[in-house]
């Protein structure tokens, strides 16, 4: 869990989550409000620069993490850029189907805008996710009055994700030790057994966890203390100024 590791160990760790949340939120708003790719590109540069330059996330790690959403994005915008039902320029046919593929200036522009907007939004959220542990993000969401039930689910899912991964790893190692991965057939069977066991064990684990919570006086609400961080006005002003100016720019530059 790469993101988690950096969230706990980066140079922006001690910066108040409200500051990081403000910056990321304004970046997100600016990207979504933009009418041209210019502002989202600026947002990407600012957020990427902050994550890599200021918070100290290694550039290689950052780019690798960007690959995941980039894959989804490229697949998504391909549909916008190219069309099979007509356009300015015929660029080829789908082999074997006799399906023509067209590109159009308008389509390419739309695709570029969507790509840039999404990139800016992803970079904004990555800045928050890579510099702020989940617990503090939850604290931030609580200030924003997100329903408690949702936050509890986030925390439990987060914790159980690691417990489940650990369990899956253990089972898989135990299967390998008994030649469970020796042939393709074995691998498939092992995978099926792993899945089935994970479900049963997760249910068992959930029950155990519930007992553990009851033992410490759980009634109907999960509660915990949040870490206290100082909130220097300087940081907040800087975040509002930089994010705000981008948002302003996005609202002013209308194509």
């Amino acid at each position, binding site marked *: 869990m790469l993101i988690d590791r950096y969230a706990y160990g980066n140079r922006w760790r001690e910066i108040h989550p409200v500051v990081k949340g403000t910056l990321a939120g304004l970046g997100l708003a600016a990207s979504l409000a933009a009418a041209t790719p210019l502002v989202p590109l600026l947002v990407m540069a600012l957020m990427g620069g902050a994550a890599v330059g200021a918070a100290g996330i290694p550039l290689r790690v950052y780019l690798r993490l960007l690959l995941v959403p980039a894959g989804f994005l490229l697949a998504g915008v391909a549909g916008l850029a190219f069309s099979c039902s007509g356009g300015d320029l015929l660029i080829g046919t789908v082999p074997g189907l006799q399906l023509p593929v067209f590109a159009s200036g308008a389509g390419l522009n739309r695709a570029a805008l969507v790509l840039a907007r999404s990139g800016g939004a992803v970079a904004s959220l990555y800045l928050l996710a890579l510099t702020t542990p989940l617990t503090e993000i939850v604290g931030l969401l609580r200030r924003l009055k997100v329903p408690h039930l949702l936050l509890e689910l986030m*925390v439990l899912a987060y914790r159980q994700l690691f*417990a489940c991964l650990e369990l899956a790893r253990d089972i898989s190692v135990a299967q390998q030790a008994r030649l469970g991965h020796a042939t393709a057939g074995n691998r498939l069977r092992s995978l099926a057994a792993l899945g089935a066991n994970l479900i049963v064990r997760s249910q068992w684990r959930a029950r*155990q*966890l519930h*007992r*553990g*919570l009851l*033992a410490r006086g759980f009634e109907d609400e999960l*509660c*915990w203390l949040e870490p206290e961080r100082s909130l220097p006005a300087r940081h907040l002003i800087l975040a509002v100024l930089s994010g705000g100016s981008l948002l302003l720019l996005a609202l002013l530059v209308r194509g």
Partner: protein
Amino acid sequence: MNAILEVKAVDFCYADGTPALRALDLAFARGRRTALLGRNGAGKSTLLTLLNGIERPSRGQVLCAGRPLRYDRAGLRELRRRVGLVFQDPDSQLFSASVREDVSFGPLNLGLGKDEVRRRVEQALATVGLTDRAERPTHALSYGEKKRACLAGVLAMDPEVLILDEPAAGLDPAMTARLVPLLDRLHDEGRTVIVATHDVDFAVAWADEICVLHAGTLAFHGESRDHAGLCRVLAALELGVPVVFELFAALQRRGVVRGAEPPRSRAELLARLADPE
């Protein structure tokens, strides 16, 4: 005897009908250190969850300070304030993302103010030696650290009775060695401490009283000084006789050490060997 916790004629069956405890009568004395021994499946963990009100007996009664447990919300809250249970598997207890948050869960449930909760959390973390790990995510802790975090989570609730299920299981020797002084310190602060364990050497060295469960019934309950009675039961149930007792008996036969009372720990035996008087 002044019993803080007591089970009277308790039967407990699992949902599938398997009996775990049968007509069990047992009282835990206030302010004492009690070790609970027994083979796997003897009913130790089940008994502990009954004492904390997690499970209810199928028949019979559980009493805290002489009063039968009430299983309504207020009754359970009061019970869990007084009786803290630390589970064997730390993953059934840790739910929160960071150590400090997890430890704050219990005291917040007691309805304490934030400042008091903060004070208790820091104190509990210091007691188990996890202050420098407080900000870590719980999944990044070692097994021993997880176990200590669980203990801190219960200590922060400041219970009069502290119940630990296999606190040393899975710990390395250094951590196990540190556990005894820690438990003693918690006991010296006036707590009743009950520990379920498989480690008979630990039990005789640490406990004032020993209970041995076998197949859901009480096979032995007495002072840990009562080595003759205890050894008979331990041998019969194949739980293993404490090493110091065996060594002492052998050395006594050869006339190397004197005295009728066997030492309770390896350190005590070595001290007696070094200074026979």
